[in-house]
């Protein structure tokens, strides 16, 4: 009895010191697992690590490429803007205004309308007021210009 008592008191004392570890040990007994080809497993782990690092390096490279692409796209946008400016502002000045057909017809039918018809292409279409962000305003401006050009093309046939 005394032995039992002493044993239980010892167990209790032990439980007080490491209660969690004891429970853990009871639930999860230790296993010895044989790995048939440990060198191969080790090699695979190291290779996996190497590939993860290569992947991360690739990410850095990818980010760099993306940044460069964004910069190049901005350059292209500027180039196209410059082209648009050259064609719209400079080249248009050298060439006569469109709607010649309408002018000729108007000359035949109603001469007083001539001035109005000539002036219509020169006067730019009223742009929508800039609302909110600059980008949306730019898009609206482009849309209005596109509509204007399309209407001019329609008159040309």
């Amino acid at each position, binding site marked *: 009895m005394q032995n039992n008592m002493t044993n239980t008191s010892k167990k209790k004392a032990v439980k007080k010191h490491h209660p969690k570890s004891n429970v853990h040990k009871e639930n999860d007994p230790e296993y010895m*697992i*044989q*790995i*048939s*080809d440990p060198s*191969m*497993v080790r090699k*695979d*782990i190291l*290779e*996996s690590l190497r*590939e*993860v690092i*290569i*992947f991360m390096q*690739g990410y850095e*490279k*990818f980010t760099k*490429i*993306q940044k*460069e*692409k964004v910069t*190049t*796209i901005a*350059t*292209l946008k500027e*180039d*196209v803007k*410059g*082209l648009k400016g*050259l*064609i719209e502002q*400079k*080249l248009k000045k*050298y*060439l*006569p205004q469109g709607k*010649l*057909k309408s002018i*000729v017809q108007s000359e035949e039918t109603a001469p007083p309308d001539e001035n109005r018809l000539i002036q219509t292409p020169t006067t730019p279409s009223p742009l929508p007021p800039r609302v909110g962000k600059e980008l949306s305003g730019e898009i609206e401006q482009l849309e209005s210009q596109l509509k204007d050009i399309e209407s001019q093309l329609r008159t040309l*046939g």
Partner: protein
Amino acid sequence: MEKMPVFVKVDEYDDVLALMKTIRHKLDEAKETLLKIHDLKNEEDHQLEQWQNTLEELEKKVEFIDHALSEPEQY
């Protein structure tokens, strides 16, 4: 009547030609930039392909390790 001839004054004609040259130059620049963007896109695609291959290799290795650890040989 529909195809009316267009006349440009001679003194302005030189300017028009010069302007056309500038426009062509700008156009070439834009084409080069577009080619560069295309190359960068190809590089991106190549990189993505590499990632795909790397992940597939990684998956195989992890499967092998998992197999070796979770299904040990029994004697």
